[in-house]
């Protein structure tokens, strides 16, 4: 309970029934920002940024590929953060947020892999290369699937939340280890012919386009997660009175 004359109550929105309407109000803003940033980014990426010296026009897929990859990694860390909070403080909403983020993170990972494969075909001649980053991204997809699978397998929601939190934390600790070991493996096994450079040397416009789309993806992911968490809240709190009034 807030003390008499205290300042802002920071914990007001940590309850599902107060967060639900807040999320509802925020979603249109984030969705709008997402649309705006994505449109600007796509315009810059396809019409303003110059043709790349070595790869021609095919490089332009990085404007989708790189932001998706960044989001996939970022969301995993955020998901682990909320899951850890839910585990430590036993707050329902934190775990709901982690569960809401997982599918979006998996989608971003999938987009990164798919666009990476499409990028590979015209540039290296093959859809899949056992490049360190692509392989690590695939493993990240498996980690997301593991989280979703464990959640689906456990019927009791509280046990599912806590088990997934432990899994997410173990995963987050392991991701750097996995990444560095895959990178090492790749440098040992890499044929001399295929050398995946990182994104081509960045002209400022290219970087601007990528940055805009990264922001756009970020806003989209927030909007999607907020939307999903609202559904999760309704589902889990379905016996509460306020849910019956809302639905």
């Amino acid at each position, binding site marked *: 309970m807030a003390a008499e004359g205290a300042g802002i109550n920071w914990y007001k929105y940590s309850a599902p029934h107060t967060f639900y309407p807040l999320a509802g109000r925020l979603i249109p803003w984030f969705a709008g920002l997402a649309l705006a940033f994505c449109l600007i980014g796509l315009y810059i990426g396809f019409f303003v940024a110059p043709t790349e010296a070595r790869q021609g026009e095919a490089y332009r897929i990085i404007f989708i590929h790189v932001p998706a990859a960044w989001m996939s990694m970022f969301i995993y860390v955020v998901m682990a953060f909320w899951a850890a909070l839910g585990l430590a403080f036993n707050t329902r909403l934190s775990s709901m947020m982690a569960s809401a983020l997982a599918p979006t993170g998996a989608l971003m990972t999938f987009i990164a892999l798919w666009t990476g494969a499409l990028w590979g075909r015209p540039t290296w001649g093959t859809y899949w290369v056992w490049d360190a980053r692509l392989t690590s991204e695939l493993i990240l997809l498996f980690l997301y699937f593991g989280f979703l699978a*464990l959640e689906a397998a456990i019927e009791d929601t509280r046990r599912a939340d806590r088990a997934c939190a432990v899994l997410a934390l173990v*995963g987050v600790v392991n991701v750097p280890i996995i990444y560095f*070991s*895959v990178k090492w493996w790749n440098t*040992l096994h890499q044929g001399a012919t295929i050398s995946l450079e990182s994104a081509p040397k960045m002209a400022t416009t290219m970087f601007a386009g990528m940055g805009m789309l990264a922001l756009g993806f970020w806003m989209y992911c927030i909007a999607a997660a907020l939307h999903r968490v609202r559904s999760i809240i309704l589902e889990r709190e379905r016996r509460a009175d306020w849910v019956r009034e809302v639905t």
Partner: protein
Amino acid sequence: MLSTFLAVIRRDLMLAFRQRMDVINTLVFFVVVVTIVPLGVGADPNLLRAIAPGVVWVAALLAAVLSLQRLFASDYQDGTLEQMLLAGEPLAVIVLGKVVAHWLVTGIPVTAISILLALMFDIDEDAAMTLCLSLAAGTPVLSFLGAVGASLTLSLRGAGVLISLLVLPLYIPVLILGAGAAEAVASGLDGTPYLLLLAALSLLAMVLTPWAIAAALRISVE
């Protein structure tokens, strides 16, 4: 605490000895998987020599994953696990004992058998020795990380496949280092850095995972 640790190990070893077939089945599975690979890829000696470390390590991973389900399942079913949770001893110590017993029963035989399997692939002695050492250094991680998966999926429907899905991505660094060690030696390089890193991972797992496993057990048993 040491007496608890040793008592848990002794109990688990005794139980494993009474159910010898469980243990032997896992090892036979290991040998069978290694055997069917040449049947699938052809008997070209050069090819087999090249893929031997990877094949043996992948088979070791699969055998480890298969053996994980029985780590906590029988104790959970007859209520012993709940008694362990209620015991005065730190759960992390008990868990450490169980996983070490699992490694003694799974990891060490796999390591021993790998020498024979190395003969089947005709890799040279140094590489075979390195393969064996890499398994010795790496199988503890398999047991410890696997126990995390086993404790999270305790008594779930479809736990067997779920464990593999959860645990195999986490096993990948061990696979890379372990197979890399033998391959390096086979190409004439030094395998020691790999072995040292594997040992480091094992120590890290040994120190950090018992708490995760204990937390997961409490979550699963409630």
